[in-house]
């Protein structure tokens, strides 16, 4: 059997992928099979050298996530009713209020968690998908790292939804003070879920295919 040099320090162009080697790795347990194998011998998982519909799924989930993100910002997140008044606050409105009240630290946290991270994820996923489609060979390591960050950080995007859920559950004092989740809370949760699905649908191995065709 031909032995390939799989040294990690060498240039990327000198590497060979499993696909080129006629092999396919099980994504669940890592067992390597012959290319024509359909099921993993060890875990009986479906084997697929490349997910041909990966990009489609990425785009579909991403678009759904972005659509859901619009009402998340337009509609109120929290419906606060007290004895005296009833107020509705959107994400950006809440940030403004926090700044007005001098809680700049919390404002930054909310802003980062609710605005910057989702937006950053959108941008990152779009970038990855576009570069894969264009079979660009540049920054393969960087792109892979970006993908990992997007996957990791996705779960923390739910922090807003958690806050709303906890507040709604705790502050139910009938007429004196009541907090209810707004439409935006649901939209935001959907947006985060869609984005996470989008990131998961992305087949990172496609990044490494680019230089093969290009090179």
């Amino acid at each position, binding site marked *: 059997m031909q032995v390939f040099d799989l040294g990690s320090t060498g240039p990327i162009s000198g590497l060979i992928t499993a696909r080129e080697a006629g092999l396919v790795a099980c994504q669940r347990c890592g067992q390597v099979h012959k290319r024509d194998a359909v099921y993993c011998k060890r875990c009986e998982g479906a084997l697929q050298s490349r997910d041909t519909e990966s990009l*489609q799924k990425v785009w579909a989930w991403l678009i*759904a996530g972005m659509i859901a993100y619009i009402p998340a910002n337009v509609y109120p997140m929290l419906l606060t009713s007290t004895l*005296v008044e009833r107020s509705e606050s959107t994400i950006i409105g809440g940030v403004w209020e926090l700044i007005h009240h001098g809680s700049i630290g919390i404002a930054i946290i909310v802003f980062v968690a609710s605005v910057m991270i989702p937006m950053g994820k959108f941008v990152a996923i779009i970038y990855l998908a576009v570069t894969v489609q264009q079979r660009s060979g540049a920054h393969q390591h960087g792109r892979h790292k970006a993908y990992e960050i997007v996957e990791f950080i996705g779960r923390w995007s739910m922090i807003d939804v958690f806050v709303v859920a906890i507040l709604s559950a705790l502050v139910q004092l009938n007429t004196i003070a009541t907090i209810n989740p707004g439409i935006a809370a649901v939209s935001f949760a959907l947006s985060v879920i*869609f984005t996470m699905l989008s990131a998961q649908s992305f087949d990172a191995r496609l990044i490494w295919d680019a230089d093969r065709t290009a090179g």
Partner: protein
Amino acid sequence: MSNTEPTGPAGLDVRPVKRPVWKRLSLVWLVPLIALSASLYAAWQSYQDQGTLITISFENAAGITAGETAIKYRDVTVGEVEDVEFAFGLTDVLVHARIDKTVAPYLDDDAQFWVVRPDVSVRGITGLDTVLSGVYIEGNWDTDADVAQFEFVGMEQPALTRAGQRGTQIVLRANDGSALSEGAPVLHKGIQVGYLETPELSSNGRQVVVTAFIESPYDRRVTSSTRFWDTSGFSVSFGTGGVSLDVNSLASLIEGGVAFDTIVSGGNPVRDGQVFDIFDEEQAARDSLFIDPNAAVLEMAVLFEQSVSGLSEGAEVRFQGIRIGEVSDLSAIVVGESESAEVRLQAVLSIEPSRLGMSVDATPDAALALISDFVARGLRARMVTGNILSGALLVELVQIDDALPAIVTLTSGQYPVIPTTGSEISDVAATAEGVLARINALPVEDLMDGAIDMMDSIERLANDEYTRAAPAALVELLDETRTLVASEDTQAIPGDLRTVIRDLDAIVASAAEADLIGDLDSVLETANAAVANLDAATENLPEIIAQVEALTAKANALALEGLIATANDTLAGIDDLVSSDDAAALPGTLNNALDEMRGFLAEVREGGAIENVNAALEAANQAAQAIETSVSTLPELSARASRLVAQTEAVVNTYSERSRFGTETLQTLRDIQTAADAVSALARTIQRNPNSLLTGR
């Protein structure tokens, strides 16, 4: 065939056949499609549901907050304020609001908007919920969708009448608007059945016009024969039943209000906009019930020669005791020309034909014909006293049987003139009830015969020690006479009677010569003078009568202090009379007369003029009889006098009681004033600081 190297078939292009796009599409695409369509649907829906933008301009937008202040219709939120800004030139505050699409078509030109704020008034506290929740804009419009409008002018005060509220709007007219205020109640049998809206001056500025809203079903109680009257404040009335004080509810006391009643049935139902007059008093309103205020009246004039002081516009015109109209104008006019010109006082009478017993639709001309007919048969106008206390006069049409022929003058002036007869102002006084009537009822001749103080003087005369001494003096006189008769000298007379008689003749002759008869005459004259003194004392009586009449006249004019002063004067006059020198001198005079008689008898005894004694005694007896006659009338006079004094005292007491009543009324007024002050202070406090209702501060 080529000669190039490899033979055999060319390398197969083994690229897999491209599947069609729709086959390669993943099902995942359904997710963004669903999300997109859901979003689009939601966006479209919210655009569809977006309310109609309207603009309301207010002078004052206190408490209105963009994005929070709600617009409510019958307490249901139908919109929200989106923006508050100033109009061009800072004249108004423009409130932009979104109104629900379903409601917007009903916002036509009858829509009204006002800001609901906490309000404390004597009728209660409203809008208390807005202390906590903040103000809101209340809208009011009817349920007919006409041409929708988008710009409105907000009202500063809440609309009292809800559009679409069932009831009748009527117009009330009053001469004085001080009793009318916005929101004041309209009462029917003491129940509030409606309220007044803002009073306004009529277009000619002579009356106050206010729209009143009578709620259904009470508006059915309002007919064309309904009368309204003012119930504001309270009324005090004096009548035969005593003094009555009417106080209505506290609200109407402070805010005013009107009440109405429909006594006669058969009036026509009223429509919106029917005009009614507000009468000052309930009695006046009820009095006017049988006439239509809008019916034509017959105007006639009466020319009086004497003063019409006491007659005023609005005074009643009575025909055989029934009110048939009122005096509508008083003026002076010149009658005749140049030298024969005289100023007469003209009273214009407004006579309502229907009150003359004619049919409701009788014309003034028909009434004039009727009255002309009456006048030809002796109907005359005169002034009579209507109110003995106030001295108010009224015009009475009376039938005079022996009247000089006269007719209604149609040509002399603006109005047909009814001929007059002598006014019977005092007649009424004579027949009126009460004290002054009784004073007037005293016959003048009786008063001439005696007087209060005369009686007192005579009583004092009777009790005088000199008077009491008079019988003793007479007894002494008789004793002396007897002594004279029984004396030796006298008894010696028969012995020598002839001589004596002759001597007596001589004595008589000498007595005639010595003017003894003249002495006797002078004694009798003195006695006569005594009687004349009595007469002189009686002559003061006309003065008293005059004073009593002056008292009556002043009482008529209701000059209270004058009345008391005059009464005092009268009493002082009586006192003066009693203590006058003449009266006091009377016993002395009588005594002198007796003294002189005694002296005369002594002279007779000494002079032996026996036969003159009887004559002298008879003269004295006549004098005594004259005195007795005078005395005999005195008890009656005394009774009258004491009655007079008692009546006067009663009058004075009555008035002083009334003044106590006045004090009590004043005190009540002050109490009410204090209460009103406290209420308004509370109102001010709450207006300044509505929170105080909550915090209790």
